[in-house]
């Protein structure tokens, strides 16, 4: 079965669900089958979250096995590392270089975050692309744009056409922010097409 697997990872509240939903909508617009698995409830309270999106001609199940993801899109560095083993060795990771520290239990330093995490990430996924979506969203004046920027970057590697993405974005976002979302989405595309 020819299925493309995309895993989104991050921290509860970062907009991962929205991203995956837009991706799934774009797949529907492109006439593809899609199944996506998401997290609700307990896991959302500031814990790590992941959503699985699988697209293809026919998609029977919604969970991506470890080692089967073609793409990993992470909104946070530590979470990229936590879900890295879902990625195929030749898979592509799009990682936003944001650091959100897990809850500290004391004032000792050593256990808060992984040392040299950038290097660790780059060696574990040779095809890693840094996408500083947070910085770009700040430039655009709206931090909520992080998710569409990352989607823009991802979209360059997926079979859906620009009109499918546009339709998906228009369907998911209110009229008020649609144009901003579309602009940010394009910014994500440009960023990976012609890195500065």
């Amino acid at each position, binding site marked *: *079965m020819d299925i493309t697997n995309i895993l989104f990872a991050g*921290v*509860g509240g970062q907009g991962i669900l929205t991203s995956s*939903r837009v991706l*799934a909508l774009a797949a*529907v617009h492109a006439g593809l*089958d*899609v*199944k*996506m*698995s*998401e*997290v*609700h*409830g*307990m*896991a959302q*309270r*500031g*814990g*790590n979250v992941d959503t699985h999106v699988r697209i293809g001609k026919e*998609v*029977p*199940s*919604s*969970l991506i*096995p*470890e*080692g*089967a993801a073609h793409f*990993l899109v992470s909104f946070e560095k*530590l*979470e990229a*590392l*936590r879900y*890295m*083993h*879902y*990625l*195929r*060795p030749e*898979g592509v*990771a799009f990682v936003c270089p944001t650091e959100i*520290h*897990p*809850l*500290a*239990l*004391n*004032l*000792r*330093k050593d*256990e*808060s*975050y*992984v040392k040299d995490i950038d290097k*660790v*990430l780059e*060696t*574990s996924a040779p095809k890693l692309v840094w996408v500083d979506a947070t910085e770009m969203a700040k430039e655009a004046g709206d931090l909520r744009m992080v998710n569409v920027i990352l989607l823009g970057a991802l979209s360059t590697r997926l079979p859906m056409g620009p009109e499918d993405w546009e339709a998906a974005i228009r369907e998911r976002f209110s009229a008020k922010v649609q144009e901003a979302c579309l602009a940010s989405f394009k910014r994500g595309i440009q960023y990976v097409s012609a890195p500065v």
Partner: protein
Amino acid sequence: MRKLMLGNEAVARGAWEARVAFGSGYPGTPSTEILEALAVYPDVKVQWAPNEKVGYEVAVGAGLAGVRALVTMKHVGLNVAADPFFSSSYMGVNGGLVVVSADDPGMASSQDEQDNRSMAKAAKVLMVEPYDAEEARWMTREAFALSEAFDSPVLMRMTTRVCHHTGVVHPAERAEFTPKGFVKDIPKFVLLPNHARARRVKIEERLQKALAFSEQSDLWNPIRKGSSDIGIVTSGVSYGYVLETMPEASVLKLGITNPLPMERIRAFAKTVKKLVVVEELEPYIEEAIRAAGIQVHGKDILPDTGELNLPLVEKALLGHVRDKVTAHPGDVKIPVRPPTLCPGCSHRGIFTLFRDMKLRVMGDIGCYTLGALKPLAAMDACMCMGASVGMAQGLEKFGGPKEKGKTIGVIGDSTFFHSGLTGLVDMIVNRSQATLVILDNRWTAMTGGQPHPGTGKDIHGEDAPQLNVAEVCRALGVKRVREVDPYNLEATRKILEEELAAPEVSVVVAVAPCLLGARIPKGEPVEINLETCNRCGACIRVGCMAIHEKDGFPDVDPDLCGGCGVCEQVCEPGAISLPAGK
């Protein structure tokens, strides 16, 4: 038409297509979004009940009135509704009644992993199991017809991955259904023992009728003819894993799993060399097949705890896992990131007090259960909804002098209305001396902010009658009821001490709305003066995401901190200052 829907949204769609007139239930992951989605459709009355039992009973009443009714809950909710669930089976239905039980294999958000397929069998009601969103739609729609045709409530058993996966759905036109009106039928609906004995016989007759239907139904129990080397019997989410692992196998997919169509299974088994059941959790189908004298594999090659997934099914059916090699960070220790109370949450301060006062805390279920995690670690037991009240009474009575004056029950407001009330009645009449702390944050926060009887809103966000927690406790007969502001630690501590010392039952109501539920905008952050900070770590130990360690000192994240002031109050050297004007 193709539409993207969450499994739960598809259930709502199917119910609406079936012209359901009423939807009821109590929130609980992974079932909550069904009623929320149904509430958006026109011509349906949708309401949250205070608990699953009440929700179920109102739905039965609606059914008696001749309309179709849907009631939704998570798996443990069916335990709460078990009494009417089992008895309504004897009554049968007038308008169709479908109850959704959303099970949680793997316990992503639950305290247990029970497999409610055995509940349908024990209650002798029909059961259907969808595998994806599209099936959730049409099975819900058709389940109402089954309910009426076989005069039985229908249990629709779903699981987390069916409820919370999103897939392509093909919405259809609404079905025809004319409400029947109430039909007086005393022997059927009044379950006196002699009536019930007659109904008992009817139950077996209706199951036989349903079985005959299920045996010949290619729609509900389709057979996918494939290789004769292996035949797989499966249901629910497992079907997807089977299709993907062995597209060439013969598959009997059961959409109706009570009663089980054993002759269909037997005939299918005869067409294959080896029969395997792929099912999550209990060997429910497998044991029935074995009891029918048919050779079968199942839990000898698959786990009976936790969720199934593709690799587990691959290993069982193929003997190996397909995707073995993964990108890997090597042996780096990745810090865990457990869920925590939100920055500014009204539960944080009071749990800091419980810890610092070294109280014995009988806990309950809700966001505040996170108070059991480090660095708060201020909860000693938590079992099921409402249980804190009874456990506190029992522990205080028998814990001896060590637990005297130290034992509290702590319960959220939604949980209090759900099943804490009767526990409190018991504390009163049986002269408990324990203290009950009710965390009145006005919303059912844990499940995403649904209203409850103390909120003053209905499922649509419209104003609704509002019950006041403290007044309810007084009306029940509690003499000592005190309200506190949980953001004021000193005052709260004083009142807790007084009430713990009192030799009778007392209730302390901590009143402060959930920031998310009430949509309260974030305030200005606190500031830390590193000159006066003595690095004692007390601020870190309140367990807040907005404050973390940086170069050995506490550091505030201004994007997260809203200046609730809990860390400011625990800071002895006074190094933390509140935003101006607070």
